[in-house]
């Protein structure tokens, strides 16, 4: 995609693909719109929230959202068991979950891409070791590993982040390795080598820009999984710890009140569901747009 975007920035470029790019199905438009909303919330949660997300008010505990006759002024989505404003908590939780998933996805993407390039460049032993780790990782039920690690070492923000990064690296490694192996055989790669370039120049300046498209698609497909991992672990009480909150943690707290105050769990649950669904829809669409074999 980006080559065409770059090319169409030039005045004499041929038929710009940018126009067709905007012809998305309505569902993808909705998904993209929701993702923009989530991005705005994640960026400006502190500005948007009406109350402090930790501010308790024991006089107004477990108040229902605006549609109920029992709702109270100012708490649009009601309050939780400590009388904290649900909307404010939801905004902060979205911010925390998105930020964690973004960091985790990026860590995994960078790690996987680097290992994939190393495997493709060195081949032989390096390749075999990397691919062995990839297979090992792919065969492991990662959630269980993460649970065991967190239970054993105790909860720690950086450990949690590292686990999120490790969750999806193997897909990037496998993808990058294949892409680089085939790109290395392309004439331009041989040409750059024949010019006398060092390997880093070949990879950074030529091969990576040429294979970045599929990697970005993989990023969008991997992102929802990372959100789900974060929310699952936080739901189980092994992720984000109070007083900080996240979507999964809110869901976990709300679970105890499912019969009496169902919105405490359902609202964060719905945010998780719609966010991951939107991301998957958008990523799928992006993949079919960028992959010539699927067009």
């Amino acid at each position, binding site marked *: 995609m980006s080559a065409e975007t770059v090319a169409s920035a030039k005045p004499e470029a041929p038929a710009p693909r940018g126009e067709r790019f905007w012809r998305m199905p309505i569902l993808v438009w909705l998904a993209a719109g929701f993702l923009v909303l989530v991005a705005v919330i994640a960026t400006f949660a502190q500005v948007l929230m009406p109350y402090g997300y930790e501010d308790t008010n024991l006089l107004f505990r477990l108040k229902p959202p605006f549609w109920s006759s029992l709702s109270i002024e100012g708490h649009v989505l009601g309050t939780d068991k400590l009388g904290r404003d649900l909307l404010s908590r939801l905004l902060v939780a979205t911010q925390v979950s998105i930020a964690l998933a973004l960091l985790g996805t990026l860590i995994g993407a960078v790690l996987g891409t680097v290992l994939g390039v190393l495997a493709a460049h060195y081949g032989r032993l390096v390749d075999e070791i990397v691919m062995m780790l990839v297979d090992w990782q792919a065969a492991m039920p990662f959630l269980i590993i993460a649970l065991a690690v967190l239970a054993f070492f105790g909860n720690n923000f950086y450990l949690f982040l590292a686990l999120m990064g490790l969750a999806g690296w193997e897909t990037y490694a496998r993808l990058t390795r294949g892409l680089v192996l085939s790109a290395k055989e392309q*004439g331009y790669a041989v*040409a750059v080598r*024949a010019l006398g370039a060092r390997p880093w120049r070949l990879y950074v300046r030529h091969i990576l820009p040429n294979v970045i498209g599929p990697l970005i698609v993989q990023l969008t497909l991997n992102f929802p999984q990372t959100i789900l991992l974060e929310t699952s672990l936080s739901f189980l009480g092994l992720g984000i710890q109070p007083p900080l909150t996240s979507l999964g943690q809110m869901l976990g707290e709300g679970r105890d009140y499912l019969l009496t105050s169902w919105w405490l769990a359902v609202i964060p649950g719905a945010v998780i569901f719609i966010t991951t669904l939107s991301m998957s829809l958008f990523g799928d669409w992006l993949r079919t747009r960028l992959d010539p074999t699927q067009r």
Partner: protein
Amino acid sequence: MNGTSHEPAPILRVQGLAKRFPMPRERLFGPRPMLTAVADVSFDLTAGETLAVVGESGCGKSTVGNLVLNLLAPSAGAIAFEGEDLSHANAARWRARRRDLQLIFQDSRGALDPRLTIDRQVAEGLDIHRIGAPSDRLEKARQMLDSVGLGGHLMGRYPHELSGGQQQRAVIARALVLEPKLVVCDEPVAALDVSVQAQVVNLLQDLQRTYGLTYLFISHDLSVVRHVADRVAVMYLGRFVEVASRDALFSQPAHPYSRALIGAVPAARSRHGRRVQPVALHGEPPSPLFPPQGCALNPRCPFATDQCRQERPDLRPLPGGGFVACHHVENLL
């Protein structure tokens, strides 16, 4: 090999070059078949000359070019450039030498990075070898592009915005901006329209005169070879079977394979004034996985004898100049 004492020292000397590719096993735990793409190739290049390598598809021409440039690691043999033995040179030494040893590709579109404008790609070699001040490099690249006929607005374009001939000009500019001494041209015009071929061939010849370039010119197109070559090496199944001056080869091809390749060249007459009989070969070339014993041509050669089926002929000098690998060449002329 063909350098005698009164000739200047060769710019490139290649001795006993060979390349074997391991092929996939046919059976699990079976032996690994080896494909011999190039075997025992030796030649010298004198500065400023053009040696053409001809032969049919798959005979190993490109492999020879890639071995000379160390884009493939040789299985055997030695390469000396300007007297420096490069057979044991490390990667860094080779990178430095690439300034003098350049390559022009057949597939010019594939040889250009689709995501960079051509002036940037031409300037890249200057960046790599730190030639000139960084701020002057783009300008120098543009001058080079201008001198290969890609002036003005074409310079800032992406490869897909150029025609095949323009792409090949960009590839030529990228190689020549480094002011190399030896250029391997691997079928430089084969992918181009016939009308454009002549322009690019003429450009290559002009550039050779301007910069004093030495060409290793790989081609299967004999009319192009006849136009550009000083000497011609004929390849069959990974080996040089004849090396001769262009005029000698085209008027008096000596090896049966050369005679078949050059065919019924009307002017072809033997040294005794007799017309050289065109040679008709039987069948197809064998797979390089299973080369025949003895002379590689023997299953197809009408002159083959028992000796040909057992002993491999060496490339040896002919009295009238040139080198031929055939047991019976004297009797055939």
